[in-house]
């Protein structure tokens, strides 16, 4: 049912694109049919390499952000003094659009993978940190005490309370920021690099004027964003069934 409505929406969007392309009738807006053919052709060339480069950057930064932000968020959420100390810092840093830091990050970390991974890491880190912190703060002392009364010490509390409590917060954070992450990845890949979908799109469009290939790149980047979103959605249903129980 859900899958079918999504497919229906996809079909309508492609149809709309097709109609627009007919009306506009310019080389800068090729039809979905042409773009689809180009996409299949490009998949046999260098597009998969660019796709994997982009995917790797998002994947690595997501993993790093989860590993660093969730324990820190849990600590802040459970310790009022620590949170009092860090809350103003986070308050100041959280709303800054991280993408404007890109030139600085490139200056410090160079033009390689590290600067790109760090950029996306920054965005996800704050999102996860804030959501896990707020989630951990809702774990009232009474809940912790009652689990302690069942014999749980520090390690068991982590395993049976803190870890399962932070998973939904991490997934919500990822769902909210995966779009931003891919957008920033695109911008980051416009900077001095020869790999990644951002570079690919820019190269095909602005340098080679190969518009169908440029659109194929845009489609690939959308697939990347949608794929990540879909995975997060699936994980949420798999790992947090209690949130969907009526």
């Amino acid at each position: 049912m859900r899958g079918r409505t999504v497919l229906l929406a996809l079909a309508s969007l492609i149809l709309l694109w097709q109609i627009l392309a007919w009306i506009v009738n310019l080389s800068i807006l090729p039809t979905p049919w042409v773009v689809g053919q180009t996409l299949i052709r490009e998949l046999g060339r260098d597009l998969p390499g660019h796709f994997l480069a982009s995917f790797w950057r998002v994947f690595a930064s997501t993993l790093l952000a989860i590993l660093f932000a969730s324990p820190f968020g849990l600590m802040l959420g459970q310790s009022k003094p620590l949170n009092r100390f860090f809350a103003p810092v986070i308050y100041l840093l959280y709303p800054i659009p991280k993408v404007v830091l890109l030139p600085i990050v490139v200056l410090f970390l160079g033009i390689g993978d590290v600067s790109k991974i760090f950029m996306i890491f920054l965005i996800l880190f704050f999102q996860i940190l804030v959501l896990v912190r707020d989630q951990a703060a809702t774990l009232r002392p009474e809940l912790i005490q009652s689990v302690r009364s069942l014999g749980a010490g520090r390690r068991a509390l982590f395993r049976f309370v803190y870890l399962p409590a932070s998973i939904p917060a991490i997934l919500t954070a990822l769902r909210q920021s995966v779009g931003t992450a891919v957008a920033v990845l695109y911008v980051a890949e416009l900077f001095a690099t020869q790999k990644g979908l951002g570079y690919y799109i820019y190269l095909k469009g602005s340098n080679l004027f190969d518009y169908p290939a440029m659109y194929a790149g845009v489609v690939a980047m959308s697939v990347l964003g949608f794929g990540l979103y879909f995975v997060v959605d699936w994980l949420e249903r798999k790992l947090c069934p209690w949130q969907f129980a009526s």
Partner: protein
Amino acid sequence: MIQVKNLSFEYVTGQPVFLDFNWSVNKGESWTILGPSGCGKSTLLYLVAGIRQALSGEILVDGEQLMRPRPQSGLIIQDYGLLPWASVRENVALGLEVRRFYGPDGKHAPIDATLSEYDIDYWLDQLGLTNQSEKFPGQISGGQRQRTAIARTLVLKPDLLLMDEPFSSLDAPTRESMQNLVIDLWKEHDLTLITVTHSIEEAAILGQKILLLNDPPNVSANVIENNSFGKAEVRSDPDYQKLCQILREQLSR
């Protein structure tokens, strides 16, 4: 079962909640602790649970000085303390999972603890939760949540059951049936039971003996014997009504 000797405790320096306080509970008794809010009744329960530490004096449970929560004591709190992400069954199994996690080390779990999945089904059945076992706490009623919390504690076969305002967020009919259930369980399973409550009626229903606390500091234990305890139709018994009257007068002093 419990000896509280020369206990002193304070949250704020110079404002003791308990000062040189003595109290004792025999094995198999059912006690209630009654008092106005802020009198320290929950504090006393958490001290006996080993979750809070005395400033001075000592608390012996089953002959041993209490340094940390004792694996044979069960604690039940007002808002159930259930894990929202775990099903009723998983919540009931939580204590067993924790014990399996550590193994029988004598610190987190009794040395002689035996683990059995069978016990989970038994307690789900005893508390009428078999049909709810796959649901999440958010999907069941308050009474069912509290029954889940009780099953989770009793599956660990405690010898001492501590309850902090266990039924105060339930509606009156559910509360009465839960009180009857607890008395039945207490009779069947050789428990020592201590219930903290701010309700005079609940204190008179659940307490063989009632420890009355008043505005701190509490220096001596004011214990009232309950002659109506365990009677059939206790709520309409004249002794019960007289007791409630006495408690009401003592509380408003």
